[in-house]
């Protein structure tokens, strides 16, 4: 949950990249680290095992100062996708303000996607949040590969859900910023009624997104 530290004059928002193993969650963060030019950008913290698989999490910190002087810290986390690490996934998810579900577009990954999404919905409930209100967007990654589900097929499957679907090729950096921008808009709308970012801190939704993405992104 959005953590407002009045004394330090700091708001920390936590976004979690969730999804099945090897769907490209870490790659999303790596590309964002390369592509984004926000006001503040921290070092990316990568904790991986020897064979490139995330064991704990990855962390990319981004920052923005509101006109009021409030420091808005955005922390992007990834979870380990492997089924066995469910307790770690649950702990990382705890307190999230928004979730990107990174799915693998390949046809043979449909079952893994479904299992992971079901696990996500379960874990959102287990950490005391409501899947109906927690900001969530889905990203179908690896659009550059052959043997993938068509956009039409995917949109067909997700029609009737409340979640927007975006397409990406994270390795080439396509779609990663759009995905984050979409989620940031939803997170702003979710936290603004409580934190009054616009009214008290002079930061509207567009400024919020643009400021965190940096440069011309999110315009």
């Amino acid at each position, binding site marked *: 949950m959005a953590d407002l*530290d009045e004394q*330090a004059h*700091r708001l*920390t928002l*936590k976004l979690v990249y969730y999804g099945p193993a090897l769907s490209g969650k870490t790659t999303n963060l790596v590309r964002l680290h390369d592509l984004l030019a926000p006001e*503040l950008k*921290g*070092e990316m*913290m990568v*904790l991986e095992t020897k064979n490139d698989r995330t064991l*704990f*999490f990855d*962390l990319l*910190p*981004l*920052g923005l100062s509101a006109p009021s002087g409030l*420091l808005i*810290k955005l*922390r992007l*986390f990834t979870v380990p996708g492997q089924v066995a*690490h469910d*307790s*770690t996934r*649950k*702990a*990382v998810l*705890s*307190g999230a303000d928004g979730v990107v579900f990174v799915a693998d577009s390949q046809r043979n990954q449909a079952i893994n996607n479904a299992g992971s999404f079901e696990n996500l919905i379960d874990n959102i409930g287990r950490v005391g949040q409501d899947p109906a209100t927690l900001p969530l967007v889905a990203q179908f990654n690896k659009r550059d590969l052959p043997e993938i589900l068509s956009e039409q097929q995917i949109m067909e499957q997700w029609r009737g859900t409340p979640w927007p679907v975006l397409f990406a090729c994270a390795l080439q950096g396509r779609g990663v910023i759009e995905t984050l921008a979409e989620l940031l808009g939803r997170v702003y709308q979710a936290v603004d009624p409580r934190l009054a970012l616009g009214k008290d801190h002079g930061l509207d939704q567009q400024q919020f997104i643009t400021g965190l993405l940096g440069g011309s992104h999110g315009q």
Partner: protein
Amino acid sequence: MASNAQDTLPLPAFDRALELRELLAGINTERLAAALRQLLGAPFALCAVNGECLVGEALDTAICRVPLRAELETVGYLLVQQEDDAPAAATLIELLLQGAARYQMASTLHLHAVNDDYARLQAQHSALLESEARYKELAATLEQRVAEQLRTIEHTRLQLYQAEKMAAVGQLAAGVAHEINNPIGFINSNLVTAQSYVSDLAEVVECIAQGAAAADISAVMQRKDLVFVLNDFQKLLTESSSGAQRIAAIVRNLKGFANIDGSDEEVADLNGIVRGVCNIVLREITRHAGLQLQLADGLPATRCRPAHLGQALLNMLLNAGKAITGQGTITVTTALDDGRLRLQIADSGVGISAEVLPRIFDPFFTTADVGSGTGLGLTVSRDIITAHGGDITVHSTPGQGTVFTILLPVRD
């Protein structure tokens, strides 16, 4: 789970904001201080954002003050009494803090995951214990439940056997009623005649009492044909008496079938049992079949339940009667066979086909129409013979007839 809560301390969030003090917690500050002192060649201090000195010596004034950043924020300052090497030293310290942050976040997250896994195992374990307890309870009561079921089955079986007995006895009722009705009919008519004879005699006695002349008395006797009356009176009394004896005999034989369940063992003669049953069953089966008895003389008496053996024989005689569709004979033979009593019931009926033969003793197996038999007649018979330690076998030729052979041990 209560035990679990005692075992584990509440964990801080793995992604909480870490202060400089926490980031330095895993680092040997004495060696860090010595190394920095040597690098910088001047007094220095590592201070938290609130000014508290954590490493080095508290400095009131400093020539150089470099912020130490972790993630995006300043977590403290490096104060040095010289400025040339301060930025490089601060970078080194930041790298050190980054490693510390990485370690602390990962280790706390790991503890969260381990606790969660443990809690899930505990929950799973208690669910398993619960189901184990359920199975134990089930196993403990299983024996009792089986015994209850057996009691119910036994009770039902007894009820069915009772129904079978009633059905067999019921079949006899019509025949027995006729047997009894016939003598009662002629005894009744004899008594009516006897009443008129008594009034004739009374008239003669009246004449004598009034002192009538011998000629008059003789005339009355002539008119009443007293010679015939006295003669016939005698005859009808004899006839009625034998009728009453017939009824008594039927009732005696029937008593053998009454109170079968309570009947006790006694030493009895097999031929006597056979005769008793045949007397009862005679009318029922001799409508189209002749009944022949070939009973061996001098059979040893045996300890048995006569009422039960009688029922077994009755069932088989009724079956034999049903097997005969046209004219035929039923032959009942008794003999001593290698120290055992042999009772054979042979009929010249339709016989039993090879497919049906192995099943005739099965409970509820019947070739009769639904409702006309319980299918228990031969089952009950076999059970009775077995209970007496005997054997029952059947041999049948379709179209020619069937022979049931019963062998019973002789018991004192």
